[in-house]
């Protein structure tokens, strides 16, 4: 076995000198650096076969749905005859539900814009990168801040009588405080104690979006009044 080639240290101001064996590595930039020894498999067949099977499952599932359930079709569009209620497609019914509580510029423009901006900046905010549990440090200050933010949010949404947001906000705040100092007690509280601040915020957002969408889809009837699902014009 031959010895490794000698390392030439280029100590020169000459810009044309060719350095050898240069390794300039930023672990945060290049993914390969973090790579540890682990088992690898050939993409063909292992991954390709799984992709094909996945595609087949999706197509078969959709085909079965298409055989058994017909896409809705109502009467021809008539601008003179407004249905009551007029509902948007389901993925916008959370927003339409907010429209019931807030002025249109808030529910239709401000809130969706805020949500999109918040999603885009996630990977650029330091709090999302460190992944430290919420209660890991400065517990007292965290408790005060979380408490104040909760009170402000609840006051804001309660002022507009938007109870479908107030209730989950209180529930999430309760879960956050239940997680405090939970490292030693019970499996659930141990799990809660590891949750980071961004995860709490996203969970809050998802719970609210789900509740608003479900209410808007299944529980709203004529005049956007509360009705039971079997009386609601569900499908859109």
């Amino acid at each position, binding site marked *: 076995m031959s010895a490794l080639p000698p390392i030439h240290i280029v100590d020169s101001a000459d810009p044309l000198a060719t350095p050898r064996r240069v390794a300039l590595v930023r*672990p*945060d930039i*290049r*993914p390969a650096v*973090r*790579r*540890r020894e*682990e*088992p*690898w*498999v*050939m*993409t*063909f*067949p*292992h*991954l*390709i076969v799984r*992709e094909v099977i*996945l*595609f087949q499952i*999706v*197509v078969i599932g*959709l085909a079965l*749905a*298409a055989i058994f*359930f*017909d*896409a809705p*079709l*109502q009467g*021809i*569009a*008539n*601008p003179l005859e*407004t*249905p009551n209620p*007029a*509902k*948007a*497609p389901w*993925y*916008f019914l959370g927003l339409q539900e907010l*429209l019931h509580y807030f002025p*249109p*510029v808030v529910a*239709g*423009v401000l809130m969706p814009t805020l949500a*999109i901006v918040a*999603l*885009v900046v*996630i*990977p650029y905010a330091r709090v*999302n*990168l*460190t*992944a430290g549990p919420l209660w890991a440090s400065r517990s007292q200050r965290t408790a005060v801040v979380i408490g104040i933010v909760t009170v402000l949010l609840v006051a804001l949404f309660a002022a507009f009588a938007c109870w479908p947001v107030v209730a989950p906000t209180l529930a999430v705040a309760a879960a956050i405080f239940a997680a405090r100092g939970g490292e030693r007690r019970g499996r659930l509280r141990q799990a809660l104690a590891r949750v980071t601040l961004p*995860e709490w915020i*996203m969970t809050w957002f998802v719970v609210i979006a789900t509740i608003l969408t479900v209410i808007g889809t299944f529980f709203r009837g004529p005049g956007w009044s509360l009705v039971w699902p079997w009386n609601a014009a569900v499908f*859109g």
Partner: protein
Amino acid sequence: MREMSLGSLGSRWRDTALYRSIVRHGIADTNRNGALIIFENLFLHVHPVKVRKKTLRFSHTYWLGGITLACALVLIATGILLMFYYHPSVPQAYRDMKELEFVVENGMFLRNLHRWAAHLMVFAAFLHMLRVFYHRAYRPPRQFNWVVGVVLLLVTLLLSYTGYLLPWDQLALWGVSVGTNMAKEAPLIGEQIRFLLLGGHVVSENALLRFYVLHCVVLPVALLLLLSVHIWRVRKDGGVQGPPEESDERGEIP
């Protein structure tokens, strides 16, 4: 006369100069051929030749991005077929829905497939985003791909929404009216945005034509371009990222 089985026919076909000019590798189950299958194929070579074994586990990604992509492919295929039967004009658009139901062979199946695939795509894309968030897979070096993904989610929503108007029934007209009335509320430019989108002040046949062009040309092209970037970046950023690992959590974040 020599026995002609299907197998021998296949192997004789694979020996022809024509076949060898198209596919340059053999079929023997060797790692070399496995590698050639991937990188001698335009479509498969977004994959690396080898992948980390654990990325194949179901809980690594729940295959949600794959489900979203499968829906997109189904939607493109069914969408092109539906375009053969559709006129973006009033009232012919609505009559075409009836034609699909009562005249065209399997027309209803085609429209159903397109509709349910669209709903599933929106839902799967949303779940895919949540999966990536809770696995913290947006962290460096994948920041930019997260942003591309958020834009892709918006394009998906717009595709679904523009398609919603095309049947030209009451559901379509009023569903779209509700949405575009929200756009009107944007300060300063709201009215102009709405006018640009609808080609008028109310949802009319101008709006139908504009939504049709957006739905069948502009947004699908945008989706395909962004999707290409998205999938290519997955590979460039080191493959799919599953749940965070303990050794990743030792704080090597800058």
